[in-house]
Structures are given as C-alpha cells and as structure tokens.
C-alpha cells in the first residue's frame, strides 16, 4: 500500500524498517556471504513481483555490491539515538537490504547505494534493464537519498570529464564536475588515511581505498540539475572529507593551465602540495561541519582547490570517490544512514502521521 509520498504508509505504532537498495546484486549458492536471515529480502527479477528469500536471485548488474550489503547489515540503527525518543522506539534496529535490479525493487527502497564498478558498464546494463529512467526519477523527482561510491559517484555527477568516446549517460543530481580515472591508471591506485570530522570517533583515521578513482574538478552549486521549484535555492554542497595535502598522489601534470603556470613542482611522481593551500578546504577547520549545511562553507573554493575532495554531500545525495565498502570500517555507511537517510525517513513518517 503506497501513499502519495511513494513510501509504504505506516500506522502510528508500526515499526519503520529502513530499506536501502544497492544497485546491482547477485549471490551464489553456498557462498559464505549469502544471507537468508529475516532482515534480508531479495526481490529477484521476476515479472510477478512476489517476494522471495532465495539464495539464488536471477540477475547481476556489474560491480561491488556484496561488500556494501555486508557493511549495511552490520549497522545498528538505534545505536546513538536518544534512548527515550519516539523515533528510537519505532525504528527497526536492522537495515533491510534490497539488491536492486528492477523498477519494482527500487520502489520499495527508502534510499539507494550505487556501488563501485565500471560506470560505463553499470550505465549500459541499467539502460538495457529498463532501470535508467526509474533511477533518474528516484533521484530527481522523488529526491530520495542516494550514495554513489567511485563509479556511482561518476553517475551522480552533473558533468564527467574523460568519458568514453561518444559520451556516457549520467544520472546527474550533484553539481559536480568529475574526471574519470583522474589519478591515472591502476598503478596509481592508492590507500590513504582520511581525517573525517563528521564520522563517529573522528580521531581514528578512515582508510580510503582509491581504485582508479575519479577526481572532483569543480563544484557548481548554481545549476542543480533537478527541476527544483524556482523559489528554493539549490542545496549547498557540503564537503565531508579531503585527502591530507601531503598524500595527494600526483602522477600527471596538472590539468588546469592556470595552475601549471603557478606550479613549479608539477613534474610526475612527486608529491604535490600546493593545490590544497586554501585552509578553508579542510573540514577540520570547521569544528562542526554539520552546522553549515545551509552555510557558505564551499564558497570561495575555486576550481583549483577541489582536487583533494573525496567525499561530499548535496542535500540527500552523497558521493565518495573511494571505496568504504572494501574496508571493515562501517563508519561511512553509518554516516550515510544517520545524515542522509534517517532525516528523510523521520520527515516522511511525521508527514504520514499528520495525514492520518
């Protein structure tokens, strides 16, 4: 039963089960990572949208979704919530994970993760499976929370540089210009410790795994690509994480002419330090970046200072150019659920209450 909000309506005392979709998904029979516990449902590729709990679904889009699934299933949603709050009572402890291969799968999701993989392949396969337009609606019309990692981040960007010949289809949504394989080929793939103030336990660095990762070339908040009502300004971009300036791998000459003139150290394979000279860029200069969601913390960040940005958020959309799912650390998954998904769900459930 669906109401106007597109979410299954919940009565006043029903528990809300947070459902997060992961684009793609396949599991093999007998593999250690196939789960059949009660919190996990698969909606396989079947015309009659009956619900199955089978270890063998029918389709696989391309990419690394099992890792995301494992991370999401480890989260405890009630942890850290106010012990007496109404929300805590009503939110189911476990996230329900749906592997999204069809429009029907997508319709039951509160939020979506687009995993890493090859953005060209994911986009082509999504188009052939008839998922592309539903995904666009999910982002632009329904404005539900979406997190893109690596290839997913490329799909969420407004413009891509270094796309395959003839261009490639993007979902769009975030005012970001992104360059595919911006650091170079696989030989330039790297790991780096990230200081992320927005996470739980911010003192512990988060190991960012960058695999043929995209690079954010510029931020553009003025042309949010969704059809938002003219009176509302596009949501501002909030920077969540940056590379420490001393570990920015710099394997190729700078891509911006204005910079290469000012740079004497743009030779290959040298550490590159000056592009992040702007201290405003570092989130740790904002003791509490979440106070700044409507603020101006990205103003003044020119095109030349964006190279080190590896995680950012614009309203309900979230992107990371690295792969939090490849580590055991679930703090980024926690962040996405806490900051992007939960506010959305609580808002919807309040709306439902007033309707009732």
């Amino acid at each position, binding site marked *: 039963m669906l109401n106007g909000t597109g979410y299954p309506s919940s009565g006043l005392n029903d528990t809300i089960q947070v459902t997060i979709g992961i684009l793609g998904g396949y599991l093999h029979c007998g593999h250690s990572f196939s789960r059949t516990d009660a919190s996990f449902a698969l909606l396989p590729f079947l015309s009659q949208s009956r619900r199955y709990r089978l270890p063998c679904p029918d389709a696989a889009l391309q990419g690394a979704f099992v890792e995301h699934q494992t991370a999401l299933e480890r989260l405890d949603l009630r942890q850290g919530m106010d012990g007496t709050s109404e929300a805590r009572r009503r939110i189911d402890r476990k996230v329900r994970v749906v592997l999204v291969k069809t429009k029907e799968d997508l319709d039951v999701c509160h939020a979506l993760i687009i995993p890493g993989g090859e953005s060209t392949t994911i986009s082509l396969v999504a188009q052939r499976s008839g998922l592309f337009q539903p995904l666009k609606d999910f982002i632009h019309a329904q404005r539900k929370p979406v997190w893109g990692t690596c290839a997913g981040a490329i799909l969420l960007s407004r413009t891509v540089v270094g796309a395959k010949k003839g261009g490639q289809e993007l979902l769009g949504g975030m005012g970001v210009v992104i360059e595919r394989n911006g650091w170079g080929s696989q*030989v330039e793939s790297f790991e780096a410790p990230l200081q992320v103030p927005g996470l739980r336990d911010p003192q512990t660095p988060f190991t960012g795994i960058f695999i043929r990762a995209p690079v954010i070339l510029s931020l553009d908040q003025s042309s949010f690509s969704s059809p938002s009502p003219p009176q509302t300004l596009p949501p501002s971009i909030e920077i969540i994480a940056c*590379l420490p300036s001393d570990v920015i791998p710099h394997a190729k000459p700078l891509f911006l002419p204005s910079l290469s003139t000012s740079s004497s150290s743009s030779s290959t394979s040298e550490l590159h330090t000056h592009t992040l000279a702007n201290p405003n860029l570092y989130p740790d200069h904002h003791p509490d970046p979440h106070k700044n969601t409507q603020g101006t913390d990205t103003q003044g960040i020119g095109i030349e200072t964006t190279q080190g940005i590896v995680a950012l958020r614009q309203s309900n959309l979230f992107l990371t150019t690295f792969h939090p799912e490849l580590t055991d650390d679930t703090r980024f998954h926690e962040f996405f659920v806490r900051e992007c998904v939960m506010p959305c769900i609580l808002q919807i459930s309040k709306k439902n209450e007033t309707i009732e």
Partner: protein
Amino acid sequence: MTSPASTPIPQGVGSAATPSVAPTRSVQRDGTPSSSLGTFGVKSGLAQMLKGGVIMDVVNAEQARIAEEAGACAVMALERVPADIRAQGGVARMSDPAMIKEIVEAVTIPVMAKVRIGHFVEAQILQAIGVDYIDESEVLTPADEEHHINKHNFKVPFVCGARNLGEALRRISEGAAFIRTKGEAGTGNVVEAVRHERAVQSEIRKASAMSEDELYAFAKEIQAPLHLLKETARLKRLPVVNFAAGGLATPADAAMMMQLGCDGVFVGSGIFKSGDAAKRARAIVQAVTHYTNPKILAEVSENLGEAMVGLTIDDQLKGGHLASRGW
C-alpha cells in the same frame, strides 16, 4: 618478504584491508607511509569492481571500442587471440607496447595485457606503460619452466590461471590478486573451463568441512600454503575474485560458468572470431547479468550468427594443451 608467514592474507568480500608488502611510493619524511600505492587492498579491490562483468580479448583499438560499447568491464589487449596463436604456432610473446598504449587511449575501462609465465621483465614493461592488470598467462609461451613471477614486487595487480585449488592458492601466495580458470584457450570448447571450475569448487567444499588436522594434510596434498587454505576454508570461497576463462564462446557458456560459481567471465577468441562480434559481445554481457534467467538467455542467444569454430580437446589438439603450462 615473500615467506608465507609474512605474506598478507588477501581479503575476500567485505574483510579488512591488509597492509601490503608491495613497495610504496609516497612515504612521509619521517618514514611513516602516508599514502600507499599498489597495496593488496587496491590490487584485489579492482578485481572486486570487475565482478559480474565480462572481460574481452581485443587486438586493436577498434575492437576495444566495440567491447566497451557492448558493456565489457575491462579488455585484454593482445596481438593475436588464442585461436590464432594455436593456428599459427611459434613462440607467443607480450604484445607490442605501442599497440597496448593505443588501446589504453581508446577506452576508459581497465586494460589488461598478457605476459609469459615467469617473464618478469615483460611485466616490468607493462607496468611502466600503465596497464591496469597483468595476466601471467599460459596462452603465451612460458619463459620460465620453474618459477612464476614474484607478483608482490609489482604495483600493478596480476591475474593468473588455475586448474585446481592448489594451483590457485600457489598463485595467490605469489601475489596474484585475481584468479581465473585456465580452460583451454582458443578452442571454443568450454569443457576444460568447466572441469577446472568444478575442481576448485569441490576442493573448497571439501576443505571447508575439514578439521584443522586434516587441513595440514590437505595443504600438503594439494601443495597449497596452509594459511591461504585455512582462509579459503573459512570463507568457503577463494580469498580473491574468481573468473571463468578458456573456451567460452556463447552466452550460454558464460551463464553456465556463472551458475557454477564464477564471479565473472573472460571471453577470448569467442567474440571477435565469430560472425557478428558486436552483437555477440552484447549478448554475453547480458547473459552474465541475467545468468539464471533462461528466458532472457534464450532471447539474447537468438540470431547471433556464426559462433567461432570449436576444436575437440584430445591428443591431436593443434597448438597443444595450453592449460598444462604453469606449475
């Protein structure tokens, strides 16, 4: 750092990133690594990103573009596809770097290239020109009849072929971040790939039911490093991504290998030795996506034109049994 004790256990699905023995480039002045290139995490991580995809053999930029448009998740750049190597004979070597570079320029997806077994200098060359993955392949003529390349010494990740669990784990202990079945390349005959995948799966099932005492004996029997065998038994799968390769020619072949438990497939001669390469390439990508849906498999298998010529695998096989190369 190549003794088994110091070799990092490669992570499988969802496990932690382990520090690597690979040389790191960026080291802070005080000597603590601040950013590390070529760790096992990023090597096996790229393979994770290829899962559910098709990797296609291509011999020029034009074929690479066809593969990319069909939805290949990576391409394998080589001078002659295995079917030609088999037909023409002679020593098969690494491809011309200029031709590989051309393919790297033409596409945005990862580009792999083959080196001869044990030929570490060919691997150094490929790393220098920036290929994304190296296949230490039995399809080329081996350069060393005893040693494989010490793959820990490279920043670029390696994929290696295997016929059984012992061989797969030996390759992983040498630093391979990605395993494929050997199959019998260039034959268009899937029987060997099936045999190898079934062997790996059945040995994993056997190992995962064993007690620790039995694992010691089993490790000796299959000549696998014990720590990797234990990890495999615990995970109930190989600790790295496992693709099918060698002899796949049709969408049905690809789907069968997926159902047998592979994470994705390599298609070598099967695509560009067939009648309508673009159509067959797309069909195989679709088949890997919808590998358990026979209705869709039927649709994509229609009117694909001529498949590559298949060869029977017997003692008279022209070009010999490639799978027996590697030790």
